[in-house]
């Protein structure tokens, strides 16, 4: 049981770090992929994920990234609700459909964040970075899915071993 949670926490920590550490690849600094969104989308698709967990994760992300408190929580929760609603459909499909589904979710999340930020600051923020970030996230999704799936398999494995 502790092993399960430990594994999830470790995976989450890695994602958090990926979202926060400085990446000095010029021009890439502006368009960080949405790692946390990938995890929420993929894991929610595969298994029931605790909503409170995603909420708290969102708050933690807001705190570290200096976003308005609640923004990432809001976006991740909506993504989770949307994915949960379509779980039955998504589970039976090929990976390409899963991938396309993520692209849609990523676009929605990007647009939502952009809208909220523009609204909060009473100005229109440049949309280019958001678009590039969505594209990059969609492109990297299959790569990031591999470790995410591994974590999920490990969790399932432990589940079966338990008496």
């Amino acid at each position, binding site marked *: 049981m502790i092993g399960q949670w430990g594994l999830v926490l470790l995976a989450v*920590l890695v994602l958090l*770090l990926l*979202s*926060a*550490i*400085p*990446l*000095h*690849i*010029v*021009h890439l*600094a*502006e*368009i*960080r992929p949405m790692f946390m969104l990938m995890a929420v989308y993929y894991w929610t698709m595969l298994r029931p994920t605790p*909503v*409170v967990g995603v*909420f708290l994760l*969102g*708050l*933690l992300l807001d*705190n*570290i*990234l*200096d*976003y*308005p*408190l*609640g*923004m990432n*929580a*809001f976006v991740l*929760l*909506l993504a*989770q*609700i949307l994915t*949960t609603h379509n779980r039955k459909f998504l589970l039976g499909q090929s990976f390409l459909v899963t991938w396309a589904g993520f692209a849609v979710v990523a676009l929605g999340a990007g647009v939502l*964040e*952009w809208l*909220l*930020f523009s609204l*909060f*600051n009473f*100005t229109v*923020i*440049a949309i*280019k*970075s*958001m678009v590039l*970030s969505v594209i990059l996230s969609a492109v990297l999704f299959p790569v990031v899915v591999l470790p995410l799936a591994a974590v999920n398999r490990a969790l399932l494995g432990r589940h079966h071993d338990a008496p």
Partner: protein
Amino acid sequence: MRATPIILVLLSLALMVLHKADTLPVERFRAAMMDAMSPVLTAVSAPVTAVVDNIGGMASSRDLKAENIRLEEENGRLQKWYEAALKLQAENQSFRELLNVKADPTITFVTARVISDAGGSFVKSVLLPVGARDRVQKGNAVMSGHGLVGRVMEVGQTSSRVLLVTDLNSHIPVILQNTRTKAILAGKNQDLMKLERLPPDSGMTVGTRVMTSGDGGQLPADLPVGTIVSVGADGVWVKPISDIDTLSYVQVINADIDQTLVNGDISPAAK
């Protein structure tokens, strides 16, 4: 649909609004969170940054030779400037003594590596692994090797957050180098910053250096911030003197700042 998700969504929305209204007493909590994450971020970001920098720095030997030659020439020029500076400093000192000028307080600073940088066009701030224990205060100027890059906006015990000059909320009182015109340099969450509150008919020219004016007693004066790159109908735009997106090591200038000015709270019992 179950109620919990909806409640949490509304809660997040409420938090956002409250955050905007600035009514949440979250500063202590945020500071504690920063301090908690700081060691982890420091430990992880060091090797990653090292690897990335190495990949970026793999230049051909021809580039290295050319760079070497350029640096030697620059070194030669700088040596001459160094000697001139020493002479001027001595002269300055004797004038100050003659005039009985009150000495400026010595400026101390602490150097730190950026450990967290979300990037993106929404938030322009970075995290540093130095805090109140290193005499960092809210409002302190943060410099790169070339000039001002931001100001400290939150301080924990062992970490602090810096608002970069390109952020929407960043407004710096500045002065233009040659004309001595004063203005406010506002970040726009973009590569360039905009000069605002310009007096009418100020002759702006591309290439003018923009420095801090020290007005308001918040930031030290005469810190380079950027250069004007465009003057037109859409305003005067300034390019930061440092590459804001790839900050590595920065210096936080320790100067005692009047905290009532920083907090905007002028009631006598403030903090």
